[in-house]
């Protein structure tokens, strides 16, 4: 380890590794610190991504693909289901290997990676300007100076707060999640299943994602506002007991997903936020792997440019580029999420029924969406915004 760096990345998830990789590729000296012993473990994720999303960053490799999916099935509260036609394909990842590979790509660009390195504070000068981080590395306290800090510290992010950004996720927007990876079950390997309704996950959804022969990630997320009444783990246990009573439980995790708009500010005081730390999650799906990597890439590139230009005020460019690339979309998606979350079970059932009445070739996500619009015309404006520009 050197005594100082241009850029220190806090957290080695997909967003952190991607930020580190692009910052180093842009010529900066980069250190990435991860509090856990292993990059990629524990996995707190359903692990579904689209092919188009992944290939922007890494070529698909069978060693981190547990299943290749070509369909998804939406299951209404009354048990009827619809399988929309999809153009692309998707993957269910082995994130413990995928995350590791992303960190290796960063290392190939020259990034130094240290695990068991918990960042507990920011280093500030007398004027309160951030000039480094304070870490507990293998139980030893050490201060490391740098010019820019990239906060990629996930849903539990605190680094942004220490830089003066309010990153608290509103309880309405935080999805409280529980997931089990279960085995010894019958599960189609090419379908992602999504269950909706008050019995499985009010306002949210429950997923069954295939993870190789006889195995699946079964999990759910619901707004903390709902979880107040009944917790995620209770919903999950009930579902698994009913649907897969004899399953072997291989992993069992808790988690949180900030299904919000991007934080109002993602740049302040020589600190930039990327990934879950910046709330760069698709608010409808809760998917944050690819969007976090996109945030990480833009953030890493801009940070390297700021170092080359010797002008840290250039960091504000990150906010602009993120907003233009995905931030604006997430704002629209957020409004759609709010509308969907307000659907009653009856509405969801009738959306499914109208979708099933569509001829097969029109049973696309767009078709189902139009069916949903009949039930909630106020969504129309929001949807129009997504497709117009």
């Amino acid at each position, binding site marked *: 380890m050197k005594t100082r760096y241009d850029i220190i990345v806090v957290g080695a998830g997909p967003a952190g590794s991607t930020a580190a990789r692009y910052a180093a590729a842009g010529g900066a000296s980069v250190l990435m610190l991860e*509090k*856990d*012993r292993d990059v990629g473990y524990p996995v*707190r994720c359903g692990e579904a991504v689209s092919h188009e999303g992944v290939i922007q960053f890494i070529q698909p490799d069978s060693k981190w693909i547990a299943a290749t999916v070509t369909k998804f099935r939406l299951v209404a509260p009354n048990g009827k289901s619809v399988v929309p036609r999809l153009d692309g394909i998707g993957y269910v990842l082995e994130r413990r290997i995928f995350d590791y590979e992303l960190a290796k790509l960063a290392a190939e660009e020259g990034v130094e990676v240290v695990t*068991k390195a*918990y960042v*507990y*504070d920011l280093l500030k000068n007398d004027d309160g300007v951030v000039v480094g981080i304070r870490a*507990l590395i293998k139980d030893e306290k050490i201060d490391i100076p740098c010019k820019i800090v990239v906060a990629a510290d*996930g*849903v*539990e*992010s*605190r680094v942004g*707060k*220490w830089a003066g950004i309010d990153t*608290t*996720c*509103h*309880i309405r927007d*935080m999805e*409280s*999640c*529980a997931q089990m990876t279960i085995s010894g079950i019958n599960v189609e390997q090419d379908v992602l299943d999504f269950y909706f309704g008050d019995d499985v996950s009010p306002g949210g959804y429950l997923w069954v994602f295939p993870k190789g022969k006889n195995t699946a990630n079964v999990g759910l997320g619901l707004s*903390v*506002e709902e*979880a*107040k009444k009944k*917790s*995620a*783990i*209770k919903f999950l246990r009930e579902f698994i007991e009913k649907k897969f009573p004899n399953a072997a439980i291989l992993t069992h*995790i*808790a*988690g*949180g997903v*900030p299904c919000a708009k991007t934080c109002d500010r993602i740049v302040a005081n020589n600190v930039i936020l990327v990934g879950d730390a910046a709330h760069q999650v698709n608010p409808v799906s809760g998917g944050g792997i690819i969007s976090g990597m996109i945030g990480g890439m833009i953030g890493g590139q801009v940070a390297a440019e700021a170092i080359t230009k010797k002008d840290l005020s250039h960091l504000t460019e990150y906010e602009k580029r993120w907003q233009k690339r995905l931030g604006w979309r997430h704002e629209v998606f957020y409004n759609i999420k709010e509308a969907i979350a307000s659907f009653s079970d009856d509405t969801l059932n009738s959306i499914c029924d109208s979708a099933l009445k569509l001829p097969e070739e029109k049973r696309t996500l767009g078709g189902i969406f139009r069916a949903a619009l009949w039930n909630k015309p106020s969504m129309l404006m929001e949807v129009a915004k997504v497709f117009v520009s």
Partner: protein
Amino acid sequence: MAKPFLMIHIRPGKCDYCGCCVGVCPEDAIELQESKIAVIEERCTNCRKCVWACPWEVIEFHREGIKDLPKEISALDNLQFAHSLK
């Protein structure tokens, strides 16, 4: 905010260290490491958002505070760890 004693309590050994509670805490009052977690008493306002957020229901709110709870379920060890960083 001055309070007589801690009312929010994370049951030791039950937590999954997932960070969902940290993400909703408005006071930055939860310290989370790989396998350690603690509520920072001086900052906590007992708003209970962390209690609601916890997917595994391992955070408890004690209206009377936890000072009288038996030692084995007190958060003292955890608090010492949180303080050691400040």
